[in-house]
Every structure is written in C-alpha cells, then in structure tokens.
C-alpha cells in the first residue's frame, strides 16, 4: 500500500506544480492579472515562473518585432501625380504594460498602426513631388549609353531631387514613432514597399516612353543615312582625286619625255652647220617617202635633176641637188 500512496502523492505533486507555474517563451512576455487587474511588473525573462493558482491569469504578449503590411493606397503627390503606394513597417511591444492597458491585443494595435502610419504616409507623400519619393541619392549622376541617348532632350538623365526617398521615409518614421510610444509600441522601421503609377498616369508614362524611343530610333536611322552619305561623298572625292592626280602625272611624264627627246634631237642635229643641212636633207627625203603615194600625180620637166639626163648627158648633178 505504500507504493500506491507514493503514486498518488506524485500525481498530486505534478498537478500542483502545473497549476503554480507557467512557462515564458523567448518570444513572449507575460503580464499576470488578478481578476483582470495587472499584478506586479511584466515578466520579460524567458523560463519557468511561479504564480498563484486559479486567481492569477497569464496574459502572453509578443516580444518579437511584428509585421505591419499597409494596404496599397492611392494617393496624390505634391505635383498631383496619382500613385499607388504600398508601405510596410516592423514594430514591437516595448512597454507591455502600457500596451496591455491601452490596446490589449494585436488586432487593435494593428488598426491603430493602420490609422497612424496611413495618415503619416499620406501627409508625407502629399508634401513632396513624385521624384522625391522615387529617387534616393541627390548626387548620383546616371551612367549613359552615349550611343543611345546623346542629343535627345532629357532621355537618359535623372531628375534632380532635394529630399529623396529615404528622407521621406524617415519623416514618416519619426512622426509615427512619436505617436506610437504612447501605446507602448516601438517602431523599428517604415518603408515604401511598392510605388506605382495609377492606371491613367501609367498610360501617359508609357506614351512618353514610346515617343522617347521613337526619337532614338529615328536618330539612329538618320545617323546611318548621314554616315553613309559621308562615305559616298568621300568616295567621289577620292575617285576624282585619284583620277586627276594620275592624269597630272601622266602629262608630266609625257612632257618630260618629249622635252628630253627634243633636247636629244636638237643637240645632235644642231651640232654644226653641216649636220643641220644634212638633217634637213634626209628629213625631206623621208617626208617624200611618207607623203607621196599612188593617188598623187607627178608632173616633172626634163629640167629636174632626176630627169635631166633624158635631154643631156652633162653630169652636173651635185650642184643641182642641193640640200635646200
């Protein structure tokens, strides 16, 4: 019977242990309430803790950072561009008691976050121009593909900014964080998750993009035609140059050769009176040979040196044939 008593004792002990203790997880913090009223400090240390059975109730509160996913809202920027903006935030319960007293659960906390973050986002967006929400670093200069965008208006350039996306996010963060501390909530971060044009704006943007690209394409085509024309022009020029230069050179060569030949002839034929005479004589004979042909009729008298002998036998030829 001793063992039975022991068994009962053990079981009762286990039940008592279960009722008097509770576990706080690493991800939790606990507020004990006695008939709905908080008792003592919130328990933030993980592990096994004691409580009074039955009368103390354990209220678990998240210790981790929690998500807040804002709805995708349509809002207007300062320059009246309609955007669909989707934000997110991470927050945690930093003062569990405050949180417990004012909000009690996550659902009401999230709805408070919706209100505060939603309105702060709207305010911040309305205060800035579209580009301030899109761009971040003021001093960044876009790398451009010279080939693509040179000479076409604003294509390939970034719009300049004064504030920038991160500063706008910070603005929202600061204002919202201040409003949330009263609820025992610490805001870790707020950011724009998505920014998109609304339907009508988007159509306008697309039209602009198309027209920009058409400009670039047109420039490419005209550049091509221009370059080609330049090359053809150079071709014509080069052809003329080559042909005229060769003509010039040929004429020079001819001239030089003729001059040289003349000089050679002159030097030889004009060397003495006799040689000049002899030249005239043989050249005349040569010319006869070339000029006289079958369609030439020749009338000679017996007085001519050639036929003189027909009438007389006097030989006095040499004086008659003079090299004149």
């Amino acid at each position, binding site marked *: 019977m001793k063992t039975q008593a022991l068994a009962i004792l053990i079981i009762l002990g286990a039940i008592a242990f279960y009722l008097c203790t509770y576990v706080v997880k690493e991800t939790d913090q606990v507020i004990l309430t006695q008939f709905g009223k908080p008792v003592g400090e919130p328990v933030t240390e993980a592990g096994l803790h004691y409580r009074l059975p039955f009368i103390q109730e354990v209220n678990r509160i998240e210790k981790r950072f929690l998500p807040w996913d804002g709805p995708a809202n349509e809002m207007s920027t300062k320059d009246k561009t309609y955007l669909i903006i989707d934000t997110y935030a991470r927050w945690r319960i930093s003062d569990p008691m405050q949180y417990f007293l004012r909000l009690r659960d996550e659902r009401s906390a999230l709805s408070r976050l919706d209100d505060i973050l939603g309105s702060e986002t709207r305010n911040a967006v309305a205060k800035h121009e579209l580009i301030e929400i899109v761009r971040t670093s003021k001093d960044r200069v876009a790398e451009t593909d010279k080939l693509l965008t040179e000479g076409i208006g604003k294509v390939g350039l970034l719009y300049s900014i004064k504030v920038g996306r991160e500063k706008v996010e910070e603005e929202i963060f600061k204002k919202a964080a201040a409003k949330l501390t009263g609820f025992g909530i610490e805001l870790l971060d707020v950011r724009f998750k998505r920014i998109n044009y609304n339907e009508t704006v988007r159509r306008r943007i697309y039209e602009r993009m198309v027209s920009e690209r058409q400009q670039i394409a047109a420039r490419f085509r005209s550049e091509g035609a221009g370059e080609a024309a330049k090359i053809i022009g150079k071709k014509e020029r080069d052809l003329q140059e080559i042909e005229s230069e060769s003509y010039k050179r040929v004429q020079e060569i*001819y001239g030089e050769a003729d001059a040289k030949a003349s000089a*050679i002839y002159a030097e030889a034929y004009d060397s003495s009176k006799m040689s000049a005479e002899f030249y005239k004589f043989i050249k005349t004979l040569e010319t006869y040979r070339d000029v006289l042909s079958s369609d030439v009729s*020749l009338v000679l008298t017996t007085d001519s040196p050639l036929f003189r002998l027909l009438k007389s036998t006097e030989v006095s030829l040499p004086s008659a044939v003079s090299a004149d």
Partner: protein
Amino acid sequence: MNEPIEIRIPEFIRNGLILWVIIAIAVISGAITSTYTVQAESQGVVLRFGKYLKTVEPGLRFKAPYGVDKVYVLPVRRQLKQEFGFATLGASNNNQFSEPRTRTREKSMVTGDLNAAEVEWIVQYRISDPRLYLFNVLDPEGTLRYVSESVMRTVVGDRTVDEVITIGRQEIEEEARDRLESLVNKYELGIGIDQIQLQNVNPPPPVQASFNEVNQAQQERERMINEANGEYNQEVPRSRGVADQKIQASEGYALKRVNESLGDVASFKSMLAEYKKAPEITRTRLYLESMKEVMPKMGKKIILDEDASQILPLLQLNDSGTGALAR
C-alpha cells in the same frame, strides 16, 4: 442489508502491476522525447522551459524529456533563395515565391527618369544566426521579402531605364545587396545575404515594341554604313589601280620616246660621219635611192620637156583631184 459490499479490486492492481505499466510507459515516452537528430546541414536550438539554453551541432542529441526541453532544428548551412516577379518549380522554402497574382505588381517599378521597368530578381541567403532568426522577428523570411522589394525599388529608383535594362545591371545587384544586408542587420533577422541576381529586366510590355525598334534602327544604321563602306571599297581601290596603270603606261612611253630619240640620233650621227667624208656623192646617192623608192609608188607620172611646159593645162588630171608639181 448489512452485508458488506465487496469492492472487487482486480488482481493486477493489488499486485501493483498497473504501477509498473505506468512506469514503463513513462520511461519509454521519456526515452523517445529525450533524443533527437540534427542533420548535417542544420543546427539545433534548445530551449528549456521556453528559455534559450544552447545551440547544438549535427548528430544524435539528448534533451530533457516531457516537453521540458524543446528543440528547433534550422538548416543553417543550406543556401535558400527567394524569387521576385517570377517563380520556378520546386520551392526550397515557403517564401521562395509569391502568389501568381501579385507577381506582376512585384516586378513593376518606377525608374529615376520617371519611366517604368519590370524587374525580376532573386535573393540568395542563409540563416546566419538561429537565435535571432527564431526569437527576434516574427516571420523573418517574410520580412526579408518586404525588405528586398523595398530595397530593389530604392536602387532602381535612382537609375535611368537604360541603366536598369542594359548598362547598370551589375551595379544594381551590388548596391541592392549592400543595402539589403545593412537593413537585414538593422532588423536583426538572423539572416545573411549571399547575393542578389537580376533576372529578366524588361521595359513594360506596351513599350517593348518601341525598345525593339531602337535596336532595329541601330542595326539599320550599321547596315547603311557598311553598305556605303562596301561601295567605297568596291570603287576606290580599283580606281587607284587604273591610275597606277596609266602612270606606268606613260612611263613606258617616256622610256620609249627617249630611247627612240637616242636611237635616231645615233643612226643620224653615224650617217653624218659618212656624209662628212663625201657630202656631194652621199647626197646624190640618198636622193636617188629615195626617188627609186618613191617614184614607183606614185600614180600618174608625167615628164615634160622644159620647153613644152605650156601644154600642162591641157593634160587632164582626172584620176584624182590632187597633183604635185615639182620644179
């Protein structure tokens, strides 16, 4: 009715057998709940009564039974990835890709020249600190998706559409990685970012045709230039050759002209030398030789007596219109 009520206690309880059975069940369940295995790629995080106790390496491990110790096993050595704007089959984790209907919204972005682009990318990461991963942020991987989207838009928002689509890809990957890493560290997600890779980056579909047109125009430009160059190369070298040919020919002429003159002069000189020896005879000889040669070639030959030259007009030189009269 004073008969005592007999409570029948079964034999095995009286023997204490049930106690043994309970003890046996307790021991067996204790044994089962006190062992666990950590796979090679993982680490185990052990909690005792909900409080962090230790992190253990792979192998067969023991813990306190009956839910006193709790173990979370995390694949810390596995590279995980998240896809944005698209999805491949076979997810390695629940957060690998988003729902099909949000994918389009996920990838459409506004660029710094206020154009639009569609950007698809992946993030490769690891669980680097299991303790932070488990206890610091609720749903760290879901949070990573949010942060990654925000970061990618921040980076794309600082670039022109041409940078995003073509020339700036690598720079975007690097900057996005750095920014994502610093935010992940700020949030203490217990995640380490390995890298970000851009996948398809395109202009929005309604605009795509005009982007293609630019490419075509660029090709067209090259083609026009090439064709013109072709024409140039077809004609100019040939013309150079022809010019060269003409010059060579003229040089040939020059040589011929000079050589001929030299030849003529040489023959003249030797004739002259002979002539000088006997001028009269040579002259007569040459004259007669020429006459001998010339005379037969000619047509009508009329030899008149000197005194009968008056009849000349009576002769009909009808064969040809030309005549030669030598005196």
